[in-house]
């Protein structure tokens, strides 16, 4: 087979298509990254050219190849304080808004899905303890869910590599972790502060009991879903949240692309989505 070449036009065509399907926008600087993965899939699927592969990608009824490519095009990694601007938004904008309207003393409820290995829910816990004065006045529940029971076990254990904690300030690392060989063990107080549960977001029986959340973090998950699943997830979150509740998505994800149910809220730190206050 001749070497596969991705032309400028191919790249533009793919970039536009992939953005429409996933909301992920590849800048020209990502050209090498994209070309390499495209060529890999073109060869693996036995396609002769970019064009024949693109036709398959675009018109395959099952969407299976698009899913393969999406998995390849997204870097599935997580670490403490990833996309920290959203945690800043949580403590500086979202929680002040929620507490200003709150008329009861019930705990504020935060749902993190997917939990993955726990870096995100623990980051939220640390952020609240360190940077939110309201922690002195309000109780907070953090529930963190994932479909993968092995990853949940890892999250409960709370043992992390140097790479996972590399973005944490040294002071916080010392305060909340202890060294365990080459790894870092998160402290028992934080382990005890997060409830980890197994949930398949696409399974109604799993999600129907999840209600009354003030804030949902669902970052870098919807990009793996097809359009219908993404829409279903948006509707599931809608029922899981209180009126006026907020949902934070990953930086390349947009709720507006899958549902018209939410209001876009532009805070200084981040764009997030809100279930309308008047919603039922």
């Amino acid at each position, binding site marked *: 087979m001749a070497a596969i070449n991705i032309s400028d*036009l191919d790249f533009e065509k793919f970039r536009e298509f992939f953005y*429409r399907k996933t909301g992920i926008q590849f800048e020209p600087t990502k050209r090498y990254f994209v070309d390499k993965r495209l060529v890999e899939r073109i060869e693996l699927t036995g396609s002769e050219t970019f*064009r024949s592969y693109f036709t398959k990608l*675009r*018109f*395959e*009824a099952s*969407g299976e190849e698009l899913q393969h490519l999406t998995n390849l095009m997204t870097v599935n990694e997580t670490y403490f304080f990833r996309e920290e601007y959203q945690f800043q938004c949580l403590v500086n904008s979202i929680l002040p808004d929620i507490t200003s309207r709150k008329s009861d003393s019930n*705990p504020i409820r935060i749902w993190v899905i997917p939990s993955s290995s726990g870096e995100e829910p623990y980051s939220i*816990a640390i952020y*609240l*303890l360190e940077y939110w004065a309201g*922690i*002195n*006045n*309000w*109780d*907070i*529940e*953090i*529930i963190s869910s994932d479909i993968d029971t092995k990853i949940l076990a890892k999250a409960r254990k709370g043992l992390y590599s140097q790479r996972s904690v590399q973005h944490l300030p040294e002071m916080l690392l010392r305060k909340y972790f202890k060294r365990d060989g080459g790894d870092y063990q998160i402290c028992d107080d934080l382990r*005890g*502060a*997060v*409830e980890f*549960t197994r949930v398949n977001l696409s399974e*109604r029986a799993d999600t*129907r*009991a*999840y*209600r*009354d959340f003030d804030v949902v973090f669902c970052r870098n998950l919807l990009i793996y879903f097809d*359009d*219908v699943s993404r*829409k*279903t997830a948006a*509707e599931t979150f*809608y*029922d899981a949240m209180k009126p006026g509740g907020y949902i934070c998505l990953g930086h390349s994800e947009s709720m507006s692309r899958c*549902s*018209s*149910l939410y209001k876009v809220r532009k805070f200084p730190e981040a764009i997030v989505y809100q279930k309308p206050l008047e*919603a*039922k």
Partner: protein
Amino acid sequence: MALIKIKKAQPVAKDERKRLRDCTSLIAQLEDVNPVARRWAGRDLMDCPASSAALVNRLLREEDVSVREVILTTLTTLGDEAAVAGLVNCLRSEDSALRNEAIEAMKQLPDEVAPIMRGLLADADADVRIFAVNILESLRHPEVEPWLITVIDSDPQLNVCATAVDLLGEVGSDAAREPLLRLKERYADEPYIQFAADLALKRIAED
């Protein structure tokens, strides 16, 4: 005040629905005055394959956007004949939001929409034919290009052809070249068709 963890004995939350969940009851709940009950019924009817007609019936009258979204998702998932027929019905609605929602839903149903696509593209109403071309824009189906070629070869309405040409510029292959040239001849005095067809031909040549 602090970070707290719910006690193990408590569920994370309790399922507070008290209504019956069998198919007949769920269909009845589509008429509930409370939109939350209608939304939950609309979602749970996903497990009731014979509920499409009832869902469509409610969809055409439903004013709460959150209930409409759920019903459309359920219809898309059910994807049976009654669901597709109901969505086609929505294309004829005076409500533009409902029309757009139906177009989006039909884009998700390539195999189910395919058998009726020729009929939609030959509909007496030019607006419905344009909506059908809009559906093709994201319909993952190998017949998309032949359908579009049929439109530009035979549709008597300029706007329908223009919509199809725009899309052919994106998905067209060599097979579309002659039909595009014929269209240019047919609408020799229409600058937009000349422009759009030339652009489509250029893109096909570049490929």
